[in-house]
């Protein structure tokens, strides 16, 4: 029951932690600048710290050097938080899939709920991803006993 309550609390109340690591972060910022569109999806960008967020958007290339810090940010977020992988690099390494130093997808460390394709994705694609996340949270709610 507690889980259901938390899920209900998350529905259309997405506080987004931006983990901007490379050029995709610029597209994230462009999407965040359209505050009304984000607000229409119940999302608020730029959470000041991980424990005040419930969605983590990883936009950019995750290197093996940086990977432990991304994992730590996820661990600092409240239990039941969501993760969105934004752009090819975060999805599976993207153009750097053959590189010695790039993590081949952020889902190797942390569970990802929504993958947004693009290199970079359009700013509007972030809104599409948030909409899909909302659908998924709502579906989880309906499936709950």
């Amino acid at each position, binding site marked *: 029951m507690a889980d259901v309550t938390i899920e209900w609390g998350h529905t259309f109340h997405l506080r987004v932690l931006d983990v901007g690591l490379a050029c995709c972060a610029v597209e994230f910022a462009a999407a965040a600048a359209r505050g009304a569109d984000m607000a229409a999806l119940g999302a608020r960008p730029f959470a000041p710290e991980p424990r005040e967020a419930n969605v983590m958007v990883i936009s950019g290339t995750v290197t093996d050097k940086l990977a432990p810090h991304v994992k730590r940010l996820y661990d600092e977020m409240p239990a039941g938080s969501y993760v969105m992988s934004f752009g090819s690099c975060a999805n599976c390494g*993207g153009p750097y899939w053959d590189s010695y130093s790039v993590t081949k997808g952020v889902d190797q460390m942390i569970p990802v709920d929504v*993958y947004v394709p693009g290199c970079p994705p*359009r700013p*509007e694609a972030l809104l*599409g991803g948030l909409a*899909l996340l909302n659908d998924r949270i709502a579906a989880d709610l309906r499936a709950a006993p």
Partner: protein
Amino acid sequence: MGHDVTLPERSRGVIALREESCTSCMVCARECPDWCIYIDSHKETEPATAEGARPRTRHVLDRFAIDYALCMYCGICIEVCPWDALFWSPEYDHPSTDVLGLTHERDTLGVWMRSVPSRPTQTG
């Protein structure tokens, strides 16, 4: 996905495939910097149509898929395609809850052809 966005019709959202133009020549798959295009094909032999002619062999496409988790949207495949089988479509919005869901097979790539704009008018 719940929000209306008006984009220029020639914006580069995703790559679409016109399957009937594809000859399985593999040029796109080989030129792709990411190797994110998967093509399978087999050969079929067509019997000779005229007396004295030889039977012809041609490739038949079995699979054409693009892994959009990997794709860097550079458009090189579209540039190099000798048969004009690949096109930019403005449909950017296809997120997935599973990374495998970002690999789109030829039926989806064919559906995206519907949003590809017609050829530009030649002027000047």
